[in-house]
């Protein structure tokens, strides 16, 4: 066992790195004879299990020996006795065994660790190699894919298709026997062919250019020739003028107009054409002229894009300058921008509508270029000087003359919805401020110019000329009707202010011969004053009044009775009947709200249009209404059996009108209906 181990010899010393104590020992003994004991080699022969058993046995022996020594010592043996010594020796030997075993154990451990370490090293090396290889693989794959994706410039050139190529290209380029098999050759051939063709076409192009130059020169020459003819033609035209006048064919004038018309903006042009056509065909009293600065118009049409660019550039410049300057010139610039936005086209149309009595309605149409809308201004010239009736001031006012030609067409706001955004940019809140300068942008004006905006409930599919033509006749008729109605009203007002109700002979049959109540006052009111009256609230509540209407107050009197009538005149008179509201001051104050008979009088005057409008075109409506009002007041006062405080005094108004019954029905209404020719009053 251990004694054998001590005596073992080894001829060679195989030293490895592990184990320092042995190494030291071997170096010390290295010069001497190399007979060193190598415990490590021995280690391989031994079995760890056996060693473990040995260890256990040794420990047991040791314990046993110790016990024996103890026994011996306790049984009184001497310290240096033989048995004890023997046992000591054996213990020492056991100790030595134990030490060896311990050493062996440590050496085993170390060896195990060394082996593990080595193995790990090897594994690491292999792992590293693997990674290197993988990396390389990846790199190569990337390279491959890059190569595969490579597009050469030649693919950007558009080539004719293969069939065409084979058909068209001559054989020496296409070389079908080679190229049909080999794609590379095919592509090369195609490129060759492409190059040939391009060269050829470049040649052709140069030749065409040269030809074009030549032709251009020829045109120039011919033009010069023609322009040299111009003065000659002018002379001929001048000479022919007297002939034209003699034959009354204003040929040249129409030509001149056509010449100018070419520079008109499209909507005005449409209007011109349609109005002239309508005038020629249907209405001889309509005439159209162009007025304005033709040169400016020419300048405008020559460079429309440039001017727009200039505007935007100048805007940009101005903005830049703006930031540099300290003074506030923003207001001025804004004003300029506004002016630019609201600029009118230099040319305008003037349409004249003549009426039978010699009065003329002049309409001036303007085109606002940036806003793309048409506006109109009016002027009325009459054959006779209209004597100033005070209440008639508003009637022919050019601002409101054409108001509501079609229902609710006030002409205060621009009908083009896109203008809203343009206005926001330059800070214009409402177009109404500029209307007095620029004219009214009525919807019918836009339609006459062929402009249709999506906000006008667009049901019609018409555009341009068709739209204009479809509205022309109706609008012209309405315009003429409006002028005539206003002139008639003007005349009527001047006599109403003199307390005379002008009833024409055709309408005499509506009224009895004797009418005692008389009109004493006829004045105009403003909308504000109208709304403050107490007896008109029902009309306001029913929504039958709006700010653009004209308001008048008529006062009818008879004796002590005074009847106030507030009249609402719609601009579209006589299409829309004037509305009367009554208030009677006689022994107290009553109105149509408090008394049923006054309400019946209101209804008598307001509702029966067919009776009251008289002969066409119904311009007698208002005066007939006023006359009927007087008649009704007569009937009312004469049939009122006023018995105040019991006394039967003389009646203020003796009964003169012939009535069958003075009261009828649950509300005891008076007879207001006049029957002709019998001449008596009955109930409706």
């Amino acid at each position, binding site marked *: 066992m251990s004694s054998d181990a001590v005596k073992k010899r080894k001829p060679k010393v195989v030293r490895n790195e592990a184990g320092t104590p042995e190494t030291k020992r071997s170096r010390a003994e290295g010069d001497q004879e190399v007979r060193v004991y190598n415990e490590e080699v021995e280690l391989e022969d031994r079995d760890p299990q056996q060693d473990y058993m040995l260890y256990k046995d040794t420990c047991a022996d040791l314990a046993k020996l110790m016990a024996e020594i103890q026994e011996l010592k306790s049984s009184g043996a001497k310290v240096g006795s033989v048995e004890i010594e023997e046992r000591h020796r054996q213990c020492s030997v056991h100790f030595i065994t134990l030490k060896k075993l311990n050493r062996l154990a440590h050496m085993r451990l170390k060896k195990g660790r060394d082996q593990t370490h080595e193995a790990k090293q090897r594994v690491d090396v292999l792992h590293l190699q693997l990674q290197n290889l993988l990396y390389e693989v990846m790199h190569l794959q990337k390279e491959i894919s890059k190569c595969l994706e490579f597009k050469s410039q030649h693919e950007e050139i558009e080539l004719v298709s293969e069939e065409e190529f084979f058909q068209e290209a001559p054989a020496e380029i296409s070389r079908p026997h080679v190229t049909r098999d080999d794609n590379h050759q095919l592509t090369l051939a195609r490129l060759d062919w492409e190059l040939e063709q391009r060269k050829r076409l470049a040649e052709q192009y140069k030749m065409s250019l040269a030809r074009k130059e030549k032709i251009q020169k020829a045109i120039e020459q011919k033009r010069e020739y023609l322009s040299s003819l111009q003065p000659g033609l002018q002379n001929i035209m001048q000479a022919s003028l007297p002939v034209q006048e003699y034959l009354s064919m204003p040929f040249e004038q129409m030509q001149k107009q056509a010449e100018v018309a070419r520079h008109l903006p499209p909507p005005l042009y449409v209007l011109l054409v349609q109005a002239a056509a309508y005038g020629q065909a249907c209405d001889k009293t309509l005439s159209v002229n162009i007025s304005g600065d033709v040169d400016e118009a020419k300048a405008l049409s020559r460079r429309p894009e440039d001017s727009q660019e200039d505007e935007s550039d100048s805007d940009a410049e101005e903005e830049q300058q703006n930031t540099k300057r300290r003074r506030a010139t923003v207001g001025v610039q804004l004003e300029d921008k506004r002016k630019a936005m609201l600029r009118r086209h230099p040319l305008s149309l003037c349409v004249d509508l003549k009426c039978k009595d010699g009065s003329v309605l002049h309409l001036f149409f303007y085109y606002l270029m940036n806003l793309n809308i048409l506006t109109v201004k009016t002027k009325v010239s009459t054959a006779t000087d209209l004597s100033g009736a005070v209440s008639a001031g508003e009637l022919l006012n050019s601002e409101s003359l054409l108001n509501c030609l079609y229902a609710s067409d006030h002409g205060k706001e621009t009908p083009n919805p896109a203008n809203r955004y343009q206005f926001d940019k330059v800070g214009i809140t409402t177009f109404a401020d500029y209307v007095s300068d620029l004219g009214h942008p009525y919807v019918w004006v836009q339609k006459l110019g062929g402009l249709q905006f999506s906000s006008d409930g667009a049901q019609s599919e018409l555009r341009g000329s068709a739209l204009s033509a479809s509205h022309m006749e109706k609008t012209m008729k309405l315009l003429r009707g409006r002028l005539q109605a206003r002139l008639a009203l003007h005349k009527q007002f001047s006599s109403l202010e003199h307390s005379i109700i002008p009833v024409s002979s055709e309408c005499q049959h509506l009224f009895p011969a004797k009418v005692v109540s008389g009109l004493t006052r006829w004045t105009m009111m403003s909308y504000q004053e109208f709304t403050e009256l107490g007896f008109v609230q*029902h*009309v306001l509540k*029913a*929504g*039958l009044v709006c700010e653009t209407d004209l308001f008048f107050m008529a006062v009818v009197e008879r004796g002590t009775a005074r009847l106030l009538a507030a009249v609402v005149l719609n601009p579209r008179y006589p299409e829309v*009947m004037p*509305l009367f509201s009554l208030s009677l001051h006689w022994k107290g104050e009553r109105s149509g*709200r*408090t008394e*049923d008979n006054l*309400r019946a009088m*209101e*209804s008598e005057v*307001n*509702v029966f249009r067919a009776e009251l409008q008289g002969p066409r075109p119904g311009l007698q409506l208002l005066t007939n209404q006023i006359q009927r009002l007087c008649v009704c007041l007569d009937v009312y006062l004469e049939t009122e*059996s006023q*018995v*105040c*405080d*019991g006394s039967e005094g003389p009646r203020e108004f003796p009964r003169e009108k012939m009535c*069958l*019954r003075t*009261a*009828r*029905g*649950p*509300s*005891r209404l008076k007879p207001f209906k006049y029957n002709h020719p*019998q001449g*008596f009053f*009955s*109930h*409706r």
Partner: protein
Amino acid sequence: MGPVELLHMSVFSQSFSPCGRFLAAGNNYGEIALFSLSAALSPDASEGSQKPILNFTAHDGPVFSLLSTDTHLLSAGNGEISAWSWAELIKKVSQLFSKCMTSLEIPEINAMIINPKDNSLIVGGGDNNIHIMDMETGIFKSVLKGHTDYIHCLCFKEREEEILSGGEDGAVRIWGHTEIPLSRFQTCSGMVGQECARPQFGKWISCLATDSDWMLCGGGPSLSLWHLRSMSPTSVFPLPGCQREAVFHQDLIMSVGEGPYVSHCLHGGTVKAQIPCTPSSLNTLALNLKNTEHRVMTVGGSSHQIDVFTNFSYRAFSLSF
């Protein structure tokens, strides 16, 4: 019907259908409009349900009186009465009577009532007489003459089968029905000098209502409650305007007339409440007692709107022509 015509429209008469679900109203243009109460009173009523479901021209003069029998609607125009079947209101069933008096002015018919006992129609109007017609045959049975001016209103006492009539001449006449033509009549025309007389307005009687022993009458004179047996006024109601229609309802007396309100009065003579309405003066008041679901009061007058009261103390909504 433009907005101006609507502004000048007056509603003169109303009548509920036998089932109580429809209201017929007549106006001064001779039109009758039919409104569906069930639609207007339903929880999901809208603007449209306050418009008539049917609107037709019945006569060429104003329709001053409408009356409903179990199957028909009777409407009165200028001197003519038409009967319309409730079932199919479009077709005219028959024109019951047509009058032609003087050719100059055709008298209007202001009031119609029915005597259910012998199924006759009693009509009073512009020719100062009361006509009684048998509804089965359509023949006029009798004429009651006596008024000196046109008749405003008629009223019927069920128990004694007597007719009361009030007219422009200021007289209230009571006509017995036991003997034909006119037997006994008594007038209450001694209103002059009585406490209910109002000479500043006039003497005409435009509304009558009776509750067997009691009679309401008013018009030019103030609305007053009379005890019929003693022929004397027991209470006078201090209402400012002239009343055009009054009814007894449970303990109250409701009346309408000049002035934009419905007056609730107590038998003792006090005015309990005046409920405001949209028309500026009222011509007709009707209570729908036939149908418990649609128990409403409707009033119409100088406006194209008819106010509907579901709770009699305030206006709920308005139907409009």
